[in-house]
């Protein structure tokens, strides 16, 4: 059963780390040199990175879920 508690804890860590990446690395990024498209490109790239992070988050959690499920069945 402790694996499920570990799952909750990993999710919590991922939320904190994800927030940290968002604020300290992604948010300060600025795109320039494209004139009037600067702000659109800036927002688009930031949104894309955020989506990639969410996909990575879901991928990690899916792997943990499968590991817990198989471990529980084996026990």
């Amino acid at each position, binding site marked *: 059963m402790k694996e499920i508690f570990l799952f909750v804890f990993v999710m919590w860590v991922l939320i*904190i780390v994800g927030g940290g990446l968002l604020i300290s690395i992604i948010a300060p990024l600025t795109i320039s040199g494209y004139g009037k498209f600067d702000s659109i490109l800036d927002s688009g790239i930031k949104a894309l990175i955020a989506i990639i992070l969410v996909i990575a988050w*879901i991928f990690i959690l899916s792997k943990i879920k499968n590991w817990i499920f198989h471990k529980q069945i084996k026990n």
Partner: protein
Amino acid sequence: MLDKIILAILVSAIAFFSVYITTPFLIKGLEKRNLTVKDYNRVGGAMVPRPGGPSILVGILTSEFTLYVFFPTAEILAILITTSLAFVVGLIDDRKVLGGWFKPVALAISAIPIILLGTYIPHLSFPLFGTVKIPELYIALVIFMIPVTGNTINSIDVLNGVASGFMTIASFALTISLFIIHNYDIALASLPLGFVSLAFYKYHKFPSKIFPGDSGALTLGAMYGVLAIVGHVEIIAAVALLPAVINSFLFLSSVKRIIEHRQIKSNPVTHTDDFKLMATTNKDAPITLVRLILASGPMTEKQVGLVIFRLSIFSAVLAIVTAFMMGVKI
């Protein structure tokens, strides 16, 4: 400060006793009108009255209206309107079988008063790292938040007492967190949610005398979502809700689409000969939190409920730790 303490005691008492007193009348009324459903996990399949949403709403409305008389703020108004709209959505779903997309869309519409009343700050606060300003994205987050919290609580309402017990733990964790970050007004407004859930748990716990139904679960979940937005504690609220989020995540990652629970063809849980709950061996059945808990072996319904409550307490502690971490900056 003393007046706020007195008011906190008053709204908590109103919230608790209005549900505690009205629910037995609701149970009798539902039984009279034959509005009952079978409890498949109980030996003999007892018929249980449903929905308990009306008594939950009475508790929330009476206590929040009392608070509004003393503190007429837009935030309390947003809580009242959005929660009531979510109740209506749930009540429609209790009476009619609607498609999987009905609830998320209708709940998203229920979130509009939060935007119209301007009761949000378009910043997302993270522990240790500070805040990020997302003006346009935040409006999408508001629209997204109410369906997510509503359906998350609804999806965990699978065993006797779990939804109300879980909500009691999560909402008290949210109230404590709001006090920690010095948001006393919203902390006060969040108290009724915990006390309404606690009073309803008395009748919902194993063996259930009433089920909350979609109207009850969506009302509780939507109010939790509004509190997270108007209290500016979105991340803390998400952490306190983690076991239910995991349940939704497991379900969605296994069925890979948004569907109503009634549309599931294979039940993730079956029964042993002595009527304990057991994880199904059917590979087509969705993976849920209960199935994951039961994967190690059969348990009674009460035992599974206690495991979920232990998980809730664990995530409630993490939410409170997160609230403390909000004051720390790297």
